[in-house]
């Protein structure tokens, strides 16, 4: 009688991550402990949160409950929040989830159901179960909707939050991540004015600028990466201007954005990025790998200075990168410097967002459906501080936790990183859409792209039509 879970070890690891880094202890295994409900409930009742797993050939079906399973009393019924799920075997991709709120134990079966009569029903003696389905009368046994399973196991789940909304969110984070990935792969800049959006990362030393690029790359590669050097020295590790394209996986296509990494800002004027360098960076005059000098900003005389940058060379969105835990302790010099930079950015008319890194409560940042940020998060005070300090709209203050200490990717962190990236691209689109015609017209003299020329001609046509109106 082997008391070994049927899960492979990798599946168990994935399940643990899915449940928010919980640990699992096998309590009941049908093939070892017998097929009566009494035997199951004897072992599994009063054990805290448990997960009941039914193994099929290619999938795993079950329910997670955060309340105790009740002890068996004839036909006992209990308010018991649970979440029904279907996982694909091996990858443990979540295929379906459903919240249920009642648990019923009879001498023959275990039933999880909702107030509107959806039920997930397990009948161990016959190794059959029924999936939640509105159209089936639950009194009918042995109907065609009853399905056979191979094994039933129940685990205690330790270290899990006592919040089904959170758990459902964790389970569906992967689905949402995949949707975001698809959206970002398919993204095209506004009116195809440029082929790649350039996002400039600006912020104090150690705020996580290079780490954000590494994290974005990690999400698209599926494992942690370390292309941009990071470190814990007190001075900036990044001394060069870097324009990083990102590939969709090691052998994939380039994605339609680039992340531009700069030297960190310092309190004093003798260290860190020179504020006078910033307008040139934004205009696109600074070449990739230019070595910054805190004392001497780049000038048009520099041999690699780009004298006539086109729209594609310039920065389309600036992200101020700040450690969320250091905002309250920013020195007055740093605040003044940030405001000075912000004025330059506003003067250039470029889109801008704030990116707060090192968020501790990743799971609280977004609503359960991932569509919006919540205000319930403990970091909301910091968001308000940035809103007041720089006047950045709340919806453009983004929060992430970069991959710095982690060895495995986490769908919730992936979602935050990809959501932030999407918001930056949306902001950049706003910038492109707002460009005056003469700015877009420059394309005709710098770029041989047919699309651009066609766009330019169409613009003239529309103008002509308007001019020939009744007046």
């Amino acid at each position, binding site marked *: 009688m082997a008391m070994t879970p049927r899960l*492979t070890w990798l599946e168990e690891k994935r399940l643990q991550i899915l449940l928010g880094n919980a640990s699992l202890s096998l309590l009941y295994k049908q093939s070892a402990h017998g097929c009566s409900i009494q035997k199951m409930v004897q072992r599994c009742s009063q054990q805290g949160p448990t997960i009941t797993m039914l193994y099929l050939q290619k999938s795993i079906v079950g329910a997670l409950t955060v309340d105790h399973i009740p002890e068996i009393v004839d036909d006992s019924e209990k308010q018991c929040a649970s979440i029904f799920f279907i996982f694909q075997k091996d990858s443990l991709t979540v295929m379906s989830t459903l919240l249920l709120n009642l648990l019923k134990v009879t001498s023959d079966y275990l039933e999880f159901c909702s107030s509107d009569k959806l039920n997930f029903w397990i009948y161990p003696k016959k190794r059959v179960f029924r999936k939640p389905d509105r159209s089936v009368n639950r009194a009918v046994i042995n109907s065609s909707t009853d399905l056979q399973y191979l094994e039933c196991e129940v685990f205690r789940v*330790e270290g899990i939050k006592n919040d089904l909304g959170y758990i459902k969110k964790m389970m569906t984070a992967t689905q949402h991540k995949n949707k975001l990935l698809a959206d970002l792969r398919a993204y095209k800049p506004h009116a195809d004015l440029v082929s790649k959006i350039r996002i400039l990362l600006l912020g104090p030393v150690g705020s996580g600028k290079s780490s954000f690029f590494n994290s974005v790359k990690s999400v698209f590669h599926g494992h942690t990466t*370390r292309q941009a050097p990071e*470190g814990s020295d007190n001075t900036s590790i990044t001394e060069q201007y870097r324009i990083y394209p990102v590939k969709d996986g090691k052998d994939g296509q380039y994605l339609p954005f680039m992340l531009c990494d700069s030297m960190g800002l310092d309190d004093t004027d003798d260290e860190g990025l020179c504020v006078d360098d910033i307008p040139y960076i934004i205009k696109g005059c600074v070449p990739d*790998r230019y070595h910054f000098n805190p004392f001497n900003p780049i000038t048009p005389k520099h041999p690699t200075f780009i004298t006539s940058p086109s729209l594609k060379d310039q920065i389309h969105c600036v992200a101020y990168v700040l450690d969320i835990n250091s905002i309250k302790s920013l020195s007055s010099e740093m605040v003044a410097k940030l405001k000075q930079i912000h004025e330059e950015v506003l003067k250039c008319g470029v889109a801008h967002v704030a990116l707060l890194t090192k968020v501790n409560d990743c799971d609280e940042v977004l609503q359960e459906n991932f569509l919006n940020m919540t205000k319930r998060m403990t970091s909301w005070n910091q968001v308000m501080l940035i809103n007041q300090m720089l006047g950045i709209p709340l919806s453009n203050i983004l929060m992430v936790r970069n991959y710095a200490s982690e060895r495995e990717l986490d769908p919730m962190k992936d979602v935050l990183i990809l959501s932030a990236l999407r918001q930056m691209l949306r902001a950049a689109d706003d910038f492109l859409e707002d460009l005056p015609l003469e700015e877009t017209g420059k394309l005709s003299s710098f770029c041989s792209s047919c699309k651009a020329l066609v766009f330019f001609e169409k613009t003239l046509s529309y103008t002509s039509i308007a001019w020939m109106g009744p007046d």
Partner: protein
Amino acid sequence: MAVTTRLTWLQEKRLQHHFGGKQFSLLYKASVHEFYSKNLLEKCCNQGPTIIVIYSENYVTGAYLLDSLQEERDVPVILFALQETEISEYKIGSHRLETLFYDMYRNAFENKRVTMSSKVNEELGLPEPCTTTFQECEVFRCEDLLDKRKGEGVTGTLLFAMSTYKPYKDMVHQIRILLLGPTGAGKSSFINSVKSIFRGHVTNQVLVGCDATGISKKYRTYPIKDGNDGQCLPFILCDSLGLSEKEGLCEEDIVSILKGHVPDRYQFNSMEPITSRHHNYIHSPSLQDRIHCVAFVFDANSVEQLSGEMVAKIKRIRREMIKYGVVHLALLTHVDSMDLITVGDFPDIYSCVPVKLKLETVQRKLGFALSDILVVSNYVSEWELNPVKDILILSALRQMLWAADDFLEDLPLE
């Protein structure tokens, strides 16, 4: 609401060690499931070997049951007491659960008090009979730490990934990984361990050519062959003279190695770095000759004792690597000799408390990101491979190859 054990990580570890490297799954907890032996039996019968732990005011005692607990059946029992860092035990033969509790603990459940017989006290080395308050009773299922699921499948996947790995855009045929670190850290042992895994049994080739003290003085580049088809694998491990405060590898030599100027078997000289006048100097190295990833190798047990000079030297070298864009990681060896760490911990090694503390120390001292610090246990005295040990070594190697891809992707276009 949640049901969790009272055992500290250390207590659990000591019990695991004592009873043969088991992993514990909590099945019954008296304060939740009520103080009735019937309830205990319901939850814990037919679970394989189990361990009963009783917490009293002054110490932890219990019984290890070698077979499944079953109703009306005797089971072999070992009583134990856990005090500070020691476990004493007393084999009492076979007992049924009911008689076990009645004879040994005299109505402990009903009265919530523990009184053990003089004989048991004597055998376990406990103080003279006294009655102490019964605080908690927990029962765990004992499973082998080295669950088969954890070894073989994962190793096979990793081996395949290493064998079929292709460098980024096929820019080079083989990734060169340079091992740097203090003398005696385990650089050569790591190379031997990698070779062993792909050969299928333990090998010690890398020690050939060293002097009597076993210290490498030559620069060596070791291609690794796949044991199945004899083909060279897509990476080369490069071994160098150890770092030390005074002698050891010149910092100037490191730059030459990174750029690919140093030929295989070059004899290092602590006092004199290689120059272009050396007869084997590689004047125009190609990308293939360069180093694509560096691993700093440290002994996990002595990394805290690195001198200030050595730390400063390592930091200077790291700065140099950042300048050249070479991605680098830290590799801690001898993880199995850390307190209470066994091979059974390897699959979840980064979750173990002593390892976490060690990594945080390395981060503070040397500045590596936590996720850039890898741990391994090299093959030193073994003859045959252990799949669980292989996982750490292959996982570390995979991280190095991923880091090398990052390096290649970051190269400026030429």
